[in-house]
């Protein structure tokens, strides 16, 4: 606090009196500064630890005794072995990974091959009849029906387009494949009564084979 020691005296002509005005006390908040000296006896006097210079250390009481002529680890056989193991594991791991990848790829390949074999088996009859229009389409249709019978276990009697679609959808077969299958069936039905060339017949045969392979992959 700054005490008000600035005063100004003057003569007021209105009141015909001498008057004195003084500045008001000024208060300042002190945030930092020298600590006030207080006689506080509870303060703990800290002492620095001074060594006498005679700190010759005592013996060590715990010890792990080991054989005197223990051989060096560096340049030992174990060291070389451990050093070479990572060098050998890198190519080995990479080779194994490559082989696994190949086998995985091959798994898909083998499935395709199996499906193709199956399709060939069912279509073998139709293949023999290639060229003879009536017989070819008859055997082609039969092959497709037989395939479904074998795969889904349904009777030839209740095979209709809707029924086939429904069944295949239940088996979660892709709709494109189902459409293709139905298309082939329809076409072979139709083709019996329309003029057809040999090459068209061949095309039809390939299509049927493709459909069976596709179906087999998904079933």
């Amino acid at each position, binding site marked *: 606090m700054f005490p008000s020691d600035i005063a100004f005296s003057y003569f007021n002509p209105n009141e015909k009196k001498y008057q004195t005005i003084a500045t008001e006390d000024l208060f300042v908040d002190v945030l930092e500064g020298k600590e006030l000296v207080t006689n506080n006896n509870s303060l703990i006097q800290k002492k620095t630890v001074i060594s006498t210079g005679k700190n*010759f250390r005592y013996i060590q009481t715990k010890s792990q005794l*080991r054989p*005197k002529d223990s051989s060096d680890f*560096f340049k030992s056989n174990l060291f070389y072995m*451990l*050093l070479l193991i990572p060098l050998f*594991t890198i190519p080995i*791991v990479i080779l194994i990974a490559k082989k696994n990848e190949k086998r995985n790829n091959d798994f898909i390949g083998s499935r395709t091959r199996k499906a193709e074999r199956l399709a060939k088996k069912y279509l073998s009859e139709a293949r023999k009849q290639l060229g003879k229009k009536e017989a070819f389409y008859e055997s082609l249709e039969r092959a497709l029906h037989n395939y479904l019978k074998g795969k889904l276990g349904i009777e030839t009697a209740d095979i209709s387009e809707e029924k086939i679609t429904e069944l295949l959808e239940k088996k979660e077969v892709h709709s494109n494949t189902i459409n293709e299958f139905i298309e082939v069936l329809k076409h072979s039905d139709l083709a019996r009564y329309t003029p057809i060339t040999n090459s068209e017949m061949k095309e039809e045969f390939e299509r049927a084979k493709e459909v069976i392979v596709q179906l087999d992959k998904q079933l």
Partner: protein
Amino acid sequence: MKKIVFLLWIVANSIAAQNADSLFVKANNFYKSGEFETAIENYKKIESQNLISSELYYNLGNSYYKLNKVGPSIYYYEKALLLNPLNEDVKKNLVFAKRLALDNIQKLPQTFSQKINTDYLQKLSYDKWAVLVLVFSIAGSILFLLFFFEETPSKKRLYFVTSIGCVLFFISALLITNNQYQLSKNKTEAIVFANKTEVRNAPTLNSEKIFTLHEGTKIIVLDMVDNWKKIKLADGKIGWIIASDITLLKPFKLN
């Protein structure tokens, strides 16, 4: 039969170890009660069983220091440091023991690489450096495999950089290990045990005296002829000394 022999060998070994441990405790007790000579006797019994440790040598050094025998005291401290260069107690007490030694030998100023060598690289023994080498080699190869099989580019980059870093560390650690190994195999140090000994300029008694050494001075052994050893001081002075006046910290091997 082989199994029985093996079992017996294990049992015998463990008995010896137990025996040595109890000897160690016994010797420590003698040291505690101030019977330093008996303590030394017991410590040496352990050593004669071919069992050693940094602490054993340290305690031997302490006992000799208490008996005011500078030479053996420094000798055993140095031996303790050879086994474990990081033993703090040894380093502290070695300073005390060196104060008792008479010879004041100024070390030659070290080059930058020598300083790095003594200040950092020699903190680990070459066997510990060898372990570091293996750690880096395994870490490096694992990181390389991770890099090889990683698909994400950012992670792939990270693995690449870290694996390259590991390889670099691996190579430098291997070089350091080999360097430390060569150093420790080729450098034989010794402590002067004789109270006072003359160093001559040739391995014969009638040759010229060059300087005098006192008990407790550490020297490097360079060569030997008959019962003479060619030595080098820390300040670079070279001369011949009678082999019986010094004790080697480890067997000297002529290259």
